């Protein structure tokens, strides 16, 4: 009995050590974001525990949100990019998944295989050709440009995953809906969408985090101009141009994390499924 007890203690201590190692960097950032510029460059954030002077100010948040960096605008832009960039590909992919699963048309198999094969194309490949096309039709720098780009890069995976789910739905339900005279469109809207909610939610959370945290697509197709830029690209230009303004950078980083962390904590269960499902993204 005694050895078992000791191994318990050892396990718990190891786990506590791991928790500490994993959380300390984030705690450091959190504390730093409330310290003034002077304090940040003169002493480490851990000194607030022994010497709390200059340790608490909301100035950084005030400045980064409403000052010259305008992160409040970037926050709104991120919302404007993210919500449609999540809903649009899911809607399009759900229609396509239903079409591939339950409708009959020539070339169905080969077209579906093509969709799956496109999973291997990394989005980096698309940047230059798509940018050229956007510039030619003067679409670059608009929200529509980014939504469609995110839709394009998420669609192959979304279609594949939703197909896996929708094609497994019981055949009887769909056939009896057709017998009752429901059109494909009605069946899709009234039956398939509600039944597929778990799959839609999983992919939605995955796509949400992906888009919210994305740097590459937004930087390329929306640009870094202050009035349109999203938070990730504002943060990167802050690290680059004024790497010494730690106090603003830390507050900015925290603002950018609030929404995904809340979504994560609230929907952890769906999130796990979505992550596993979203493994081959982009």
């Amino acid at each position: 009995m005694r050895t078992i007890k000791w191994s318990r203690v050892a396990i718990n201590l190891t786990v506590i050590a791991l928790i500490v190692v994993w959380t300390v960097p984030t705690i450091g950032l959190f504390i730093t974001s409330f310290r003034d510029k002077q304090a940040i460059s003169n002493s480490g954030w851990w000194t607030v525990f022994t010497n709390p002077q200059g340790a608490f100010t909301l100035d950084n948040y005030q400045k980064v949100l409403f000052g010259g960096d305008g992160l409040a605008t970037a926050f709104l832009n991120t919302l404007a990019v993210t919500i449609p960039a999540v809903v649009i590909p899911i809607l399009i992919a759900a229609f396509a998944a239903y079409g591939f699963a339950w409708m009959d048309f020539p070339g169905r198999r080969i077209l579906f295989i093509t969709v799956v094969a496109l999973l291997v194309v990394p989005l980096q490949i698309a940047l230059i050709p798509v940018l050229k096309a956007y510039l030619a039709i003067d679409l670059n720098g608009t929200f529509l440009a980014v939504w469609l780009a995110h839709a394009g890069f998420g669609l192959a995976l979304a279609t594949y995953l939703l197909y896996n789910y929708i094609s497994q739905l019981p055949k009887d339900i769909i056939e009896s809906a057709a017998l009752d005279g429901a059109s494909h469109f009605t069946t899709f809207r009234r039956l398939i969408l509600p039944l597929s909610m778990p799959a839609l939610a999983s992919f939605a959370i995955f796509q949400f985090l992906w888009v919210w945290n994305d740097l590459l697509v937004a930087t390329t197709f929306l640009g870094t101009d202050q009035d349109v830029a999203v938070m990730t690209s504002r943060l990167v230009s802050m690290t680059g141009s004024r790497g010494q303004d730690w106090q603003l950078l830390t507050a900015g980083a925290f603002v950018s994390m609030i929404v995904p962390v809340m979504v994560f904590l609230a929907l952890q269960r769906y999130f796990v499924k979505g992550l596993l499902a979203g493994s081959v993204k982009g």
Partner: protein
Amino acid sequence: MERADAVATPPPRGIAQVLAAGVGRILVSIFVPVVAFVVLWAGFLWLKDSGAPRIVIVLVAIVWGIGGVAMLYVVANWLTEKLPATWQGRILPFVFVGPALAILTFYLLIPAVLTAWASLFDANGQEFVGLDNYVYSFTNPEMVTAIRNNVLWLVFGTVFSTGMGLAMAVLVERSRLDRLAKTLIFLPMAISFVGASVIWRFVYSYQPEGQPQVGLLNAILGAFGLGPVSWLTGEPLNTILLIVILIWGQTGFAMVIIGAALKGVPDEMLEAGRIDGATEWQVFRRLIVPSIWPTIVTVATTIAILTLKIYDIVTAMTGGNFNTQVIATLMWKQAFTFFDAGRGAALAIILLVAVTPVIWYNLRQFRGRAI
């Protein structure tokens, strides 16, 4: 219901009435899409140059974007249902799968072909240079370093994230703090790589000796009386330290997914092993690992794909300086800083070739598993 009604009520009409009805139907069929198009176009123009407050623009954009796509489907379906049944059956499937195929063609298929083609031409896309860009990619010292770095990312990132995730899953399972530990270790997953990079700047920060160290690592060194180290400037240590950020982010993912698989391992099997005299390590090595192997492969390939395409951490931490560049950052640099379309394209194709087998392997493991 709608279809049944339409069949059930064909009222008797005269020729003139039928003609009028036919023309009316055609007019309506043209009118509705035109109105839909005009509404969408007006919305687009307004969004492009509106001086309205940002919050208004953002709200309108969200409604316009989502509503617009939904409206296009409704209109397309409505139009198709006006057609005779045989045509309806032929066209409707393409209303469903068509938009997805069109978008995929425009955003992935055509770009892949164009990029492969462009990789065979010079910087301006004028002169055919054969495989020169690929030769350059594998001989230029900067590129060779990038490929070496990507290999480091692939090996260390994948092995450590997966390995530590596995170890933690086993440990946490036996601890009373399992819920807390899972949430806190998993949490970095929700943080962007850019945000994570800001966090880790405070771990790696370096000031010359004598000045106060605000970076955690150098402060710890100082506490032991050692001089500060400039962590991010010396290779290949700097790349390894950037990989640590990825491991910090991905271990929780590996832990949670592997942890879920561990729950599925039957206890009786493990008990039987213990009764037969197996040590805990043997139980782990011979019984647990083989039964969750498919999950481990899925997790490892997932992280491997991520490491091959890694871009954000390097850009945000070092900007690819001090020999920390990877294929994706060099590709960006060639394409958008040096405007060398050929070399940029060759790098993109190299990336595609590198991820293909990993994705293929990942899908094979994944197939049949519903989400």
